[in-house]
């Protein structure tokens, strides 16, 4: 089965600093999803990457998927207190149309704290 490892497990930064969160898979990623969660709330979808080398940005958050499709990174530029929360990566273990029915495996999450 596919396993996702996120690093670091937790991160404390000063407001305005840049930061990177990594998500590494033991197998090829056929769809890599990044979510953000505030404590006690549901997950908010951020971005989805599918192609090797793909990069997407939304406001100050950029996500990349490496060429081999086994590692993804999430980069936040000039962090703000509103960026604080838990960031989770989730991945599909086989191409769309297979028998997985869209099931995702998730990493353990990275807790981000941003000090003003």
């Amino acid at each position, binding site marked *: 089965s596919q396993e996702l490892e996120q690093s670091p497990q937790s991160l404390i930064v000063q407001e305005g600093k840049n930061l990177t969160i990594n998500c590494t898979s033991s197998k090829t990623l056929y769809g890599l*999803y990044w*979510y953000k969660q505030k*404590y*006690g*709330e*549901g*997950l*908010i*979808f951020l971005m*989805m990457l599918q192609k090797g080398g793909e990069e997407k940005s939304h406001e100050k958050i950029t996500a990349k998927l490496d060429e081999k499709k086994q590692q993804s990174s999430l980069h936040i530029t000039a962090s703000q207190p509103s960026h604080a929360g*838990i960031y*989770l990566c*989730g991945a*599909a273990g086989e191409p*769309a*149309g297979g028998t*997985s*029915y*869209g*099931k*995702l*495996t*998730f*990493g*353990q*999450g990275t807790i981000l704290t941003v000090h003003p």
Partner: protein
Amino acid sequence: SQTIHQWPATLVQPVGSPLSLECTVEGTSNPNLYWYRQAAGRGLQLLFYSVGIGQISSEVPQNLSASRPQDRQFILSSKKLLLSDSGFYLCAWAPGVGTQYFGPGTRLLVL
């Protein structure tokens, strides 16, 4: 637009009592539906998924069961709760095998 609701938001139940958590989706038809449990505020464990009415697949054998009585309704149940059932339960929907969108969650505390 699509919305997903979970009820109740918080629940405190004694050990051995029954459980029923409800998830409903609005604004879409024939969604894939998923139940996850999140322990200690970290990673998500997929419990059940459904691709249609009455079609339930279980990922982890345990004390819980799921049902989908209507197209946009997904229910998580237990006949007798265990202490280990405590956690944060999240429901999600997807348009086929696409991006999953999550509900607000239900926090369950079993005492």
